[in-house]
């Protein structure tokens, strides 16, 4: 029998010593094991990796990594230096949303029975510039993309309906202007 795992869209209560919302961008050698090396540094220093997005770089010998991190901001600079020290890391740096465009996408599957519920849901989707990407008699999958707080807001609003499941891509970022990420 399948185990019943409860999921929730509520955020855990914030801890005073933990500050979320740091986004790091790394350019690394595209080889097995690189992610292990990086993750171990964060785990050892009790930083939580909230999201991780990895994909091949323009040059397939390299990968681009975007990490969403929460943890003590005081030690973060040193951690970045530790990451930079890894032989496989070309560079690692932190970006604030002023310096960079940060985006993510969420897929949200909601129960959508009855015309009233459907209309309401579609209004929300329209408001957030989202899209329905799957539609059945009883459910729909909504796609929302944008800055993280916009995705958060949409998820919060949809939480008053019966959400079946949600999936988020995690943040990707790119430095603004001509600056390299």
């Amino acid at each position, binding site marked *: 029998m399948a185990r019943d795992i409860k999921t929730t869209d509520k955020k855990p209560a914030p801890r005073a010593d933990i500050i979320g919302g740091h986004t790091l961008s790394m350019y*690394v*050698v595209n080889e*097995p*094991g690189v992610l*292990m*090396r990086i993750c*171990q540094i964060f785990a*050892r220093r009790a930083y939580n990796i909230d999201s991780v997005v990895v994909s091949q770089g323009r040059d397939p010998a*390299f990968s681009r990594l975007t990490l969403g991190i929460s943890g003590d901001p005081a030690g973060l*600079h*040193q951690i970045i*230096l*530790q990451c*930079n*020290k*890894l*032989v*496989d*890391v*070309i560079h690692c740096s932190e970006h604030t949303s002023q310096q960079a465009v940060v985006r993510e996408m969420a897929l949200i599957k909601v129960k959508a029975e009855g015309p009233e519920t459907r209309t309401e849901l579609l209004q929300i989707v329209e408001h957030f510039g989202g899209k329905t990407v799957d539609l059945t008699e009883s459910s729909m999958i909504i796609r929302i993309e944008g800055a993280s707080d916009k995705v958060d807001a949409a998820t919060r609003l949809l939480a008053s309906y019966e959400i079946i499941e949600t999936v988020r891509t995690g943040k990707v970022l790119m430095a603004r202007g001509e600056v390299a990420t």
Partner: protein
Amino acid sequence: MEILWGNSAIFIMANENQSTMDGAQALIKTLDELGIEYVFGYSGGAALPIFDALETVESNIKFVLTRHEQGATHMADGYARATGKPAVVLVTSGPGAGNTITGIMTAQMDSVPMIIITGQQVTWMLGLDAFQEADIFGITIPVVKHNFLVRETNELPRIAREAHHIATTGRPGPVLIDVPKNVSQSDFSGDLDSPIDLPGYKPELAYEIDQADVEQAALLINAAKKPVILAGHGAMIAGAEAELMELATRMDSPVTSTLLGKGVFPEDHPLSLGMLGMHGTAYANKAMCECDLIVNIGSRFDDRIIGQADKFGAQAKIVHIDIDPSEINKMIKVDQEVIGDAKAVLKALNPLVEGKSNEEWNEAVNANKKKFPLGYKKQGGLRMQQVLDEIYELTNGDAIVTTDVGQHQMWAAQFYKNRDSWKWISSGGAGTMGFGFPSAIGAQFACPDETVIAVCGDGGFQMTLCEIATAVIHKLPVKILVLNNHYLGMVRQWQELFFDNRESGVDLEGNPDFVKLAESYGCKGINIKRQADVGKKLQEALDYNDGPVLINAECVKTDNVFPMIPAGAALEDMLTEPPKHKMAKPVGST
């Protein structure tokens, strides 16, 4: 006839195969070209092709069979700490590789170059729990500078060259190469000279020194009235002895060193304060508390030298010179950093430093040398300090001294004053028991004409004593000094001071007769029981050079090392003698 004909055809084919090279042979050829002199190791199935290549490839490499893989790593470590050059550790997969972890961690903590080559299951079995498969790549990630799992035979020479480059440049460290058996056994058809390709690794930046940082550091130095120079292992690795001497002379500044920096500044020099830290000299620690400037050259402000971090150097400006940017502001917030190779930095810095004389400050520092000298009681039996003091005198401070970990190590650091770099070999960052004796073997291989003394406790020596066989076989004249207190002395000291003298897990009952044990290996053994015999017996050991000699010195069982700064306490809370009142449990770990 038909059958015979068939057989000889196979024979010819085999011969043809031999004229080409397999991966293992390409690997050994490359190591030889890289100047590797010694391979310390232990054989096994997955490493068979590489062991065979040691026989089939003509090279200058000498192979040393140890009695345990941990011993092999510490030998390579001792070799590197005596020469600055890496040796290779070669072991099989699974348990063989697993036994190297402690030695790899020890090298990593102390920035020692080392190349570890592990045999591995064939590639198509990886991840399937095949016989003697261990994910040594994954297991060692946190304890290496870098590691490789080789999947293509033709990549072996390039990876070996990359491993050597990474291990020996920048901040040195151990690099592991995991070689599946099919990779080492397959035919090599690549380029032996294929160039290294490490786009994320730029050790050459350590020689591009930021001049503005140097100028700021010089301003702080020239403004100081009560400076202390703190010299670490980084200064030694950079070969900055002459530049350090010039800086100390210009500044007229006392110099203290870390455990691993011992010898980079001569400890018998009037400006030397000896070692600082938990069991450092009282005058070094007091100088750290009273100074107005600390110039740290190549030390990582280890917790054993800073004690309570927020009180360390609270009165002082702090300049930190280090090759590793991630060490800056890690333990101690500094006023000015200069990132780079210590020698290159000092070369840029020295011309900006004004020559001056600091009479008043040096007088105050020297008054503490008189007030709190290192000493020991001559009464109450034979003490480790006496043995160490006498061997220091007898060898004129010129021997290579390796140590194990414990009370004997701290007393050796206090009483064996080093005049030169590369002659003090001790596990600092990891504090690895079992390190002392095998590292002495490695150092003796590296420096056959030097006197090499392994200072060990009776506890730590028993962790790797099987290597007596290795020393005997190679007739290495290592002096194994077992300072025997029948206790895990350092732990017992903590229990006495902080746990109401409740002994728990520290009594070494069941110790062997070390002299008989040595003799059973064909190693000379000498007992020292009486204080009056120390000089004579040590001289006898020093004069014996036909092979190793073990000296078992029966020492006072319950002596304690002072000065002592309880872990995590401020330097000013140093104990220079046994406390009269009950001590609170230390807040720091060890």
